[in-house]
Every structure is written in structure tokens, then in C-alpha cells.
């Protein structure tokens, strides 16, 4: 076998596949072996689709031999288990959908299939994407590949852990308040949340429709760019997807930070920010400056209100979106004495505590007499937060800041205190509220050996600038100093 095969990026594998040095089937077998060896400990997968993956790999190998390979043909990927896959169970990390087999593919899934990518399976997540630690999954928590006593972050915790643990080449996740970037930071991988409207959400199980966006988790920035091109674009099946050109982001990547204007928002360096995280992020920004970037301090004065705004808007939208789980059309049904009682019992047993908490919060905030005081007020504050960003992007190309206030915390550490858990998203939520693209890139390890994430944000549809900045940082940073080595049971 080719040495370090499991460490290769999608672009490196493309060359190996096209030169015939490895087949997709060999690659998929190597990944299935890796999953069998480490996933009993990591628990990144809810469903491993071994037979399907091998069948897709053989089809991809035939396509490669015909000389018709697309950039992702034959590359083994994983999908967060809220992207619906025709004929392949899609659970959303919930008892409610534990047996749900979708009758159709989501648009991003269909695009990956058309590109000839191989699906290794469905990845663990916080239930209905509600959580920042992956502890709310009905399928058990994911363990951080860097330290099994710590969380991988959430809600795309399985996606981040699977990429870090070399169980997939790359994965797709979804980000409503940081659910791609926060686990990417905590697991030491790249996580990209595109502009709201960049990627179709048809077939993404809805959480908060004005915030949700699908994006990639990858080994490096160029792979994120590659996947972004593959999944982006207007889709007639999603009225919120926007009709903007889709460039070949990876081919156009610039690695030179000279002339890049980097804004450092002072409100992101506050009390509660771990000193080692602050030092690593400031060091990373300094490195960009040393290499020719222009670094200026900026202010986003409404940052402190973002978490409160988010925890009104997101639960309100969730309470509406999750009304569909009624035990009638699909999913769990727990029979009661009449139809209303069936609804109540189905939802009581189908949903976990965090999902119930958010449905209740959202229902309360939208109920008669409270709408103006809560939801409408939050939507006004959202306008102020978006204005802060517009003003900043008149002066700078990108903003640079920490992705999370702390490195990975211990399993159980915050599970009993919802508010403490919510505050973990303090630096990622603003980009969702303003609809901006944002990315987390690994920028070092703590003295205890835990990854730290550097976040960049850019103006709407500024993905190329965003990825250029992240790629430039990656180049001046050099290769990561270490990879995680989760315990193998094989």
C-alpha cells in the first residue's frame, strides 16, 4: 500500500487515482479498515455504508479508466446524518428518525453522486443539530480524536472527528450557529460555512431556516475550496439559494498574504477567552502581518448581543420546523388515547432534552403577547449586527479572530448548564446572523496538546477572498505539527 495513504488530501488522491497508482476500491477498503479499527472508540459514524461505498468505488474506477473523472470521482467522503440520502437511513441523531429511510437525495448529495464521490456513511451529530458538544445525540457522544475524554464540539462533531481521525478524506456538515467551525476548531481540521444562499439546502433537515448552511470539513483549505465548488450554486428546489457564479475556488487560490487587509475585531478578545487560544490566534495574525498582510483593529460593537439574539431566533424557527414530527407521515409514533395525545407522546419520547428545551423556548418566544418583545426585537438586533460587519468590510478584506473561546472541554463538563454550552458559540454565531462566509483553520495546539482554531470571516459571497486568506495563513504556518492518534481496537 502507498505510505500515509490515509493522510492524503482529496487533491493528492486525485493524482494517484488518475495515474492508476491506487484504485478507489483500494482506497475505500483502506478507509473501511480504518473505520473498523478506530470508530468503536471515536463513534463518529451512525451508519457505515460499506457495501454501497464499494459499489460506488467500482463505478468510480470504471469512470476513471474511461478518462472521465471529475475532481471528486472515487474520493471517499462522509455526510452529517441530516443530509437526506435515498435508500440510506438518515437519523438526525434522533430517536424520532432512528428508522427513517429517505425517498430522495438532497441536492448536495445528488451533486456528490454525479461527481462520482464515494459515500462511506452517515456521521454522528447533536440531535437535530442542536448542541455544541455532540452529547445530545441519541446514538451516543462522539469522542475527540485528540483526547477521548473530551468533546469533539458540535453539532457536526462526527464530521469533524471523522476527518481528524482519518476515517474519511473529507465530510459535509451544517452550520447554524457554528456547527461546522466550532467542531473543526476543536478537532484540528478546516471547517467552512459558506454565505447564506451559496449552497442549496434541499434535503438538509431544517433546524433554523434563516441561518442554516451546508459546508465542508477537510484536511486543508484547498480541499474545502474543491468541495465548495462541487456543492455550490442556484437550485430551483431551494428558493433561498442565490444565483451567483460558481468559480473554481481551488484553482484560483492565492497563497500570498501581501496586500491582504486583515481586520481584528476587538470585541472577540474578551474575558473568558482562554489565554493559550488568544496567544495562538494573535500569533497567527502576527505571522500574516510579518508576511505582508496589513493588520488593523476594527470594532463590531454589537457582538455582545449576538448569543442572546441567536437563542431567540434559532429556537423560534426550530419550534416551527420541528412541528412536522407528529408521528403521522414518517418517524416514530407512540400511540395515545386520541390524535392530540399521540402527538404529545410521540414528541415526548422521540425528542431528547435539548431539542425539547429549544422547541419550548421558541414556542414561548412566538406565543401570543411575546412575539414583539422577543422574536421581532431579536430580528432588529440582527440588523444592527449585520450593519457592524458591513461597516468593517468597507475597511478590510477579511476579519480574523478565535473560532472558539476555549479548546475542547471535557465530556459532561457543560452538559448540565445550557447557558454555559450556548456561550461556547459566542465567536461563531455572528457570521450566521449576518449571513457571512467564515472558516476555521488550525493554528496550533495548547500545552495540553489540544487543537486551536483561527477563524476568518468575509463579506457575503466573498468566499474566494476568505479562502485566499485562510490558504495564505496555512502556507506561512507550514504543516501541522501533529496528527491525532485515536486508540485502535484492531
Amino acid at each position, binding site marked *: 500500500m502507498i505510505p500515509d495513504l490515509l493522510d492524503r488530501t482529496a487533491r493528492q488522491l486525485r493524482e494517484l487515482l488518475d495515474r492508476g497508482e491506487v484504485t478507489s476500491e483500494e482506497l475505500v477498503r483502506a478507509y473501511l479498515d480504518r473505520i473498523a479499527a478506530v470508530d468503536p472508540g471515536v463513534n463518529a459514524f451512525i451508519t457505515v455504508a460499506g457495501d454501497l461505498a464499494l459499489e460506488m468505488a467500482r463505478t468510480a474506477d470504471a469512470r476513471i479508466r474511461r478518462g472521465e473523472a471529475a475532481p471528486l470521482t472515487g474520493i471517499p467522503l462522509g455526510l452529517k446524518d441530516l443530509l437526506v440520502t435515498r435508500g440510506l437511513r438518515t437519523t438526525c441523531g434522533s430517536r424520532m428518525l432512528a428508522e427513517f429511510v429517505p425517498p430522495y437525495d438532497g441536492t448536495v448529495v445528488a451533486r456528490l453522486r454525479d461527481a462520482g464521490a464515494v459515500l462511506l456513511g452517515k456521521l454522528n451529530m447533536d440531535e437535530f443539530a442542536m448542541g455544541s458538544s455532540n452529547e445530545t445525540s441519541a446514538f451516543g457522544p462522539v469522542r475527540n480524536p485528540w483526547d477521548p475524554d473530551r468533546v469533539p464540539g458540535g453539532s457536526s462533531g462526527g464530521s469533524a472527528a471523522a476527518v481528524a481521525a482519518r476515517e474519511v478524506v473529507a465530510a459535509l456538515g451544517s452550520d447554524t450557529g457554528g456547527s461546522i467551525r466550532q467542531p473543526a476548531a476543536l478537532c484540528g481540521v478546516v471547517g467552512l460555512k459558506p454565505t447564506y444562499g451559496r449552497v442549496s439546502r434541499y434535503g438538509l433537515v431544517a433546524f433554523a431556516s434563516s441561518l442554516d448552511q451546508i459546508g465542508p470539513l477537510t484536511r486543508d483549505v484547498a480541499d474545502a475550496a474543491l468541495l465548495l465548488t462541487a456543492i455550490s450554486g442556484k437550485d430551483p428546489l431551494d428558493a*433561498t439559494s442565490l444565483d451567483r457564479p460558481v468559480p473554481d475556488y481551488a484553482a484560483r487560490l492565492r497563497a500570498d498574504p501581501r496586500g491582504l487587509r486583515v481586520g481584528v475585531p476587538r470585541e472577540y478578545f474578551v474575558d473568558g477567552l482562554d489565554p493559550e487560544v488568544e496567544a495562538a490566534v494573535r500569533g497567527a495574525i502576527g505571522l500574516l502581518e510579518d508576511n505582508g498582510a496589513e493588520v488593523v483593529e476594527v470594532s463590531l460593537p454589537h457582538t455582545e448581543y449576538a448569543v442572546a439574539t441567536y437563542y431567540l431566533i434559532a429556537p423560534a424557527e426550530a419550534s416551527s420546523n420541528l412541528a412536522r414530527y407528529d408521528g403521522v407521515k414518517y418517524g416514530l409514533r407512540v400511540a395515545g388515547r386520541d390524535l392530540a395525545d399521540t402527538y404529545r407522546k410521540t414528541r415526548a419520547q422521540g425528542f431528547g432534552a435539548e431539542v425539547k428545551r429549544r422547541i419550548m423556548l421558541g*414556542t414561548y418566544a412566538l406565543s401570543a403577547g411575546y412575539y414583539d418583545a422577543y422574536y421581532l426585537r431579536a430580528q432588529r438586533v440582527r440588523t444592527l449586527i*449585520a450593519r457592524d460587519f458591513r461597516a468593517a468590510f468597507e475597511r478590510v478584506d477579511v476579519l480574523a479572530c478565535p473560532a472558539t473561546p476555549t479548546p475542547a472541554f471535557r465530556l459532561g463538563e457543560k452538559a448540565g448548564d445550557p447557558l454555559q454550552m450556548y456561550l461556547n458559540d459566542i465567536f461563531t454565531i455572528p457570521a450566521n446572523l449576518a449571513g457571512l462566509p467564515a472558516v476555521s483553520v488550525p493554528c496550533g495546539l495548547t500545552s495540553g496538546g489540544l487543537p486551536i482554531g483561527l477563524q476568518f470571516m468575509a463579506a457575503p459571497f466573498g468566499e474566494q477572498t476568505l479562502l485566499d486568506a485562510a490558504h495564505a495563513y496555512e502556507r506561512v504556518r507550514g504543516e501541522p505539527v501533529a496528527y491525532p492518534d485515536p486508540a485502535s481496537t484492531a
Partner: protein
Amino acid sequence: MAITPEEVRRVANLARIAFTDQELEPFAAQLSAILDYVRQLDDLDLGGVEPTAHVHDAVNAFREDEVRPSPGQDAMLANAPDREDGCFRVQKVIET
């Protein structure tokens, strides 16, 4: 602002979720803590600030009204907890 267990019961009914009395008590405390936290938005003067309806000010997205293939009745009913004669089957709603 303290949310009473009675208020939680009212919201639980709106949300169609059954709770036991033992579950209601911690829920009331947690919801109160979260609502206390979000009250900081009251500090802001929002006079003249429009609420965000769409983050990029997108307008209606129209498309042609065309017939397209769909997965079909069997596929769409395949996940139904209960079905009969091509329909989702539920308990009787209207008493006679």
C-alpha cells in the same frame, strides 16, 4: 424573569409535548435562566431599526410551474407509521 410551572405547562400544550411533573420543574428554571440572559437585548435603543427579513434582502424567487416527476405514492408512504389504501392512517379526529 421567573417562568412558573403553569406557564411551562401552557407552552408544552402549544408545542404538543407531554411532560411529567418532575420534568416541568427543571425546565421552568432553565427557561427562566435563558430568558433572563436574553433580556440584555432590552438595553438597546431599536427605534427606527428595521427587523431583518432576509439577510441578503433577496426578493421572491419565481420559477415556471411545470409538472415534474416525484418519487411516487409508494415511496412517500414507505416511512408511514400506519397506512391504508394509499393514505396515512391516523386516529379518528371528529367524534360523531
